[in-house]
C-alpha cells in the first residue's frame, strides 16, 4: 500500500524534508518524494500496520512550520517514476522540535530537564555541559537544572532582572510589570511563554499564533489589546513578540507559568541582577530569529531573516538598484526566469520601480517611475498651470490657509526621489493629515474611499511612463474641499493605488501576455495595501512574493 502525503510548503528550505526523512529513518520505512515549486509530495510504502505507525509518529514528531499551508493524504496507486530518495541536508539551526521538547519534559527520560540535549530528530547536537550562574559576584557551575530554573523563575517573579544566554543570543529578561516604571518605552520586546493566554495582552489572529509556535519561532509585531492597555503597563500600541525558541527558555517557562507569568519583557542589554551563562557554544550554531508579518490572507512575509539559500545572495549582488536586486531574487526563488513577470517594488527606504521581466526582452524593462517635485512651490505652480487647477488652489488657500502655508514649508529634498511613499508624504503635508497616509487609511472604518487620480501622462509606449503628480494631488485637495475626512481621503489614496496597480497590469498584459505579478518591498507588508491589492488584481494573474528571502533587505 502507498500513501501520498501532499504538503503545500511556501519555502525552498529543506526543513520539512529533513524531518520527514528522520521520522522515516526511525520507523525504518521507505519514503520517496516529488517536489515542484510550492508542493512537496511524499510517497510512503508499507503494510497497513507500518503505515499506521508512521502516521502516528508523523502527527507527534513533525513540527508545525510557518511555511506550511495545506496538507492532505491519499492512497496512491504507484510511486511516480520521477520521485527521488529523501536526502537530509542540514541548512539552518532550528529551535527545539517536538521530540526534544518531550524528551526534556519526560521524567523517565535520561535528558529530563537537560536544556543541552542532543536530538536525533532535529539533528541538533550540543557540546554544552553546564549552566554558569552568577549572582552578587558569586559564580556557580551547575547541572541541577530543575533547581536552577525554579530559582530563576522565583527571582524573576520577585522583580529581578535575569541575563540569560540563549541559543539566539544574550538577553535580559524581566516581568512585564516592571515596564510600568518606564515612562519612555521604545521597541518593547515580549517573550510569550504561554500561547494559550496570548490574548490576555495581545491581539493576535489564529494564523499569527500558529506562526509564533512554528519551528521557525519568528518575531512578529502585534498590537496590545485595549483592556491590557488600560492597565498602563505597556505604553506603546505595538510590540515585538516571539515564543520560546530554545530549551533553556522552555524549561524556565514551566516555572514562570506556575507563578502565573505568561510573558516576559526582554532587551539585548541593560542592567541585571543574575546571569545564566554557558560555555562550549559555537556561534555557527546560533538560532536566527526571523522577523515576519502574517498578512490578512494568512500569507507569511519574511521581513528579516538570514535563513535563505546562499545562491540568493549571489543573485542579489548582481544588480545595483535595490528594486532590481529584490526582483531578481524573487524570480529566482520562484523559478520564474523563463516567465514574463511584472515586478512591483514599493519601499519605505529605497527607490520604487515597476519593471517587466522577460527573457525575450533580455531582462528588465522599466515601466514607470515616480518623480518627487524639487519643492512644494514647484508643485503648486504646476497645479496652477491650468485654469481648473488655479481655481482649485485659490479655493484651497481660502478655506485652508494654514494647510497651504504649512505645506509650502515641507521640505521635499529629504524624500526618496522615485517613491510612491514620498508622494504619500507630500499628500499628507498638503492636506495637513495628522498621521501618514497608510496609518490613517488603516484606522479608517469605511469599506471604500473616494477615487483618487492615479494617472499617467499620455504616452503610447508601455515603458518609461511618467506619473501625473498634479492630478494625484488635485483630487485629494478636491475631496478635502468637499469636506471629506482625512482618514477617508487616505483610504481613497490607498484603494485607488491598488486599482492603479491592477490597471497597469492589464495594460502591460495587453502588450506582453504576463505569467504573473511579483510584489516586493516593505510597503506590501501593510495589511491594508495587501488586502486591497489582492481584491483589485484579478484572479487571472498569479501573484508571487519572496519565499525565504526578506521582502526587503534592511541594512
Amino acid at each position, binding site marked *: 500500500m502507498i500513501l501520498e502525503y501532499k504538503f503545500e510548503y511556501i519555502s525552498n528550505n529543506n526543513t520539512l524534508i529533513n524531518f520527514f526523512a528522520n521520522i522515516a529513518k526511525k520507523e525504518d520505512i521507505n519514503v520517496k518524494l516529488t517536489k515542484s515549486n510550492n508542493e512537496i509530495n511524499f510517497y510512503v510504502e508499507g503494510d497497513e500496520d507500518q503505515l499506521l505507525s508512521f502516521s502516528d509518529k508523523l502527527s507527534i514528531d513533525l513540527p508545525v512550520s510557518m511555511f506550511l499551508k495545506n496538507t492532505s493524504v491519499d492512497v496512491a496507486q504507484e510511486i511516480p517514476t520521477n520521485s527521488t530518495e529523501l536526502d537530509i541536508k542540514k541548512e539552518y539551526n532550528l529551535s527545539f522540535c517536538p521530540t526534544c521538547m518531550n524528551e526534556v519534559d519526560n521524567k523517565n527520560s535520561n535528558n529530563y530537564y537537560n536544556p543541552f540535549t542532543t536530538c536525533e530528530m532535529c539533528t541538533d547536537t550540543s557540546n554544552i555541559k553546564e549552566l554558569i550562574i552568577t549572582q552578587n559576584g558569586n559564580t556557580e557551575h551547575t547541572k541541577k537544572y530543575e533547581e536552577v530554573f525554579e530559582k530563576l523563575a522565583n527571582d524573576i517573579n520577585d522583580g529581578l532582572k535575569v541575563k540569560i544566554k540563549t541559543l539566539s543570543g544574550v538577553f535580559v529578561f524581566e516581568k512585564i510589570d516592571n515596564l510600568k516604571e518606564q515612562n519612555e518605552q521604545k521597541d518593547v520586546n515580549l517573550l510569550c511563554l504561554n500561547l494559550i493566554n496570548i490574548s490576555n495582552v495581545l491581539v493576535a489572529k489564529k494564523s499569527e499564533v500558529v506562526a509564533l509556535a512554528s519551528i521557525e519561532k519568528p518575531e512578529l509585531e502585534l498590537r496590545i489589546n485595549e483592556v491590557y492597555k488600560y492597565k498602563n503597563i505597556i505604553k506603546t500600541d505595538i510590540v515585538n513578540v516571539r515564543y520560546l525558541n530554545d530549551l533553556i527558555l522552555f524549561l524556565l517557562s514551566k516555572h514562570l507559568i506556575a507563578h502565573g507569568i505568561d510573558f516576559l519583557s526582554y532587551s539585548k542589554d541593560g542592567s541585571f541582577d543574575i546571569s545564566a551563562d554557558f560555555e562550549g557554544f559555537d556561534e555557527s550554531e546560533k538560532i536566527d530569529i526571523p522577523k515576519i508579518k502574517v498578512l490578512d490572507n494568512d500569507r507569511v512575509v519574511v521581513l528579516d531573516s538570514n535563513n535563505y539559500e546562499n545562491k540568493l545572495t549571489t543573485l542579489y549582488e548582481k544588480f545595483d538598484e535595490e528594486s532590481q536586486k529584490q526582483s531578481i531574487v524573487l524570480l529566482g526563488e520562484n523559478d520564474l526566469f523563463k516567465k514574463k513577470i511584472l515586478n512591483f517594488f514599493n519601499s519605505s527606504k529605497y527607490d520604487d520601480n515597476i519593471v517587466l521581466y522577460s527573457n525575450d526582452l533580455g531582462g528588465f524593462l522599466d515601466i514607470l517611475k515616480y518623480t518627487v517635485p524639487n519643492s512644494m512651490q514647484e508643485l503648486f505652480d504646476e497645479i496652477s498651470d491650468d485654469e481648473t487647477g488655479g481655481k482649485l488652489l485659490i*479655493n484651497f488657500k481660502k478655506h485652508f490657509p494654514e494647510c497651504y502655508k504649512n505645506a509650502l514649508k515641507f521640505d521635499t529634498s529629504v524624500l526618496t526621489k522615485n517613491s510612491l511613499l514620498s508622494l504619500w508624504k507630500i499628500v499628507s503635508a498638503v492636506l495637513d493629515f495628522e498621521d501618514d497616509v497608510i496609518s490613517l487609511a488603516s484606522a479608517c472604518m469605511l469599506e471604500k474611499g473616494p*477615487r483618487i487620480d492615479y494617472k499617467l501622462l499620455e504616452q503610447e509606449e508601455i515603458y518609461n511612463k511618467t506619473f501625473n503628480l498634479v492630478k494625484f494631488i488635485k483630487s485629494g485637495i*478636491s*475631496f478635502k474641499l468637499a469636506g471629506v475626512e482625512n482618514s477617508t481621503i487616505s483610504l481613497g489614496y490607498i484603494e485607488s493605488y491598488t486599482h492603479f496597480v491592477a490597471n497597469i497590469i492589464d495594460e502591460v498584459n495587453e502588450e506582453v501576455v504576463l505569467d504573473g505579478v511579483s510584489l516586493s518591498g516593505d510597503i506590501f507588508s501593510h495589511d491594508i495595501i495587501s488586502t486591497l491589492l489582492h481584491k483589485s488584481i484579478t484572479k487571472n494573474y498569479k501573484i508571487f512574493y519572496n519565499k525565504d528571502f526578506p521582502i526587503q533587505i534592511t541594512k
Partner: protein
Amino acid sequence: MNILILGIGNILFQDEGIGAHFVHYIDEKYEFESNEHSVSIVDGGTLAQRLIPLIVNFDYVFVVDCVDALNSKAGDVYFFDFENAPDEINWQGSAHEVEMLQTLNMIEMNGDLPTTKVIGVIPKRIADDTTFELSDEIITAVDTMEHTIVKELEKLDIKVSKRKPDITITEIAQISYKREILNDSRI
C-alpha cells in the same frame, strides 16, 4: 441576459457627477429580481476606457451620464439608443474628463458593443467650489431618470421593488464616494 447600469461622471464637479450619484441612488433604493436576467450596477466615475473590459461582458447596458444638447436647459433628460442618438445631442459637451462616447465608439468598432441605451441629463453648471451639492434642476430631473430606468428594466422582465423608498439623491450624493455598491458587477 446580463444587464449593466453604468453611472459616469466626476463627483467633484457637482452636477457633472450625477451619473455616478444616480446609480448609487438606484442601487440603494431598489431591489431587482429575475429568474432569467442579472442586474449589475457600476459606478464608472471617470474610468472611461478602463471600463471596456467590463462593458463587453454584458448583453444590455444603460449608461447614465451628462450630455449637452441644442435648445436644451439644465435638468432636461434624454433617453436614446447609443446607435441612434438624436442629432441635437452632443456628448462631448460635458466638462468632466470622461471620454465615454469615445469609449463606446471604440467598443463598437471592435464589434463588441452590447445593446446600449443612454440616459443623458443636462447639468446646470460647473461651479468653482468643490462640493457634493447638486443643483435643483438636476434633483428634479432625477424623478424622470428614475422613472425611465425602472420602466425599461420592467420591460426587460425585471421585477423592481423598493428597498429604501425614502432615500433621496441629495443624501446619496453626500456619501456615494465612500459607498459600496450592493448590486456590484455580477459577472
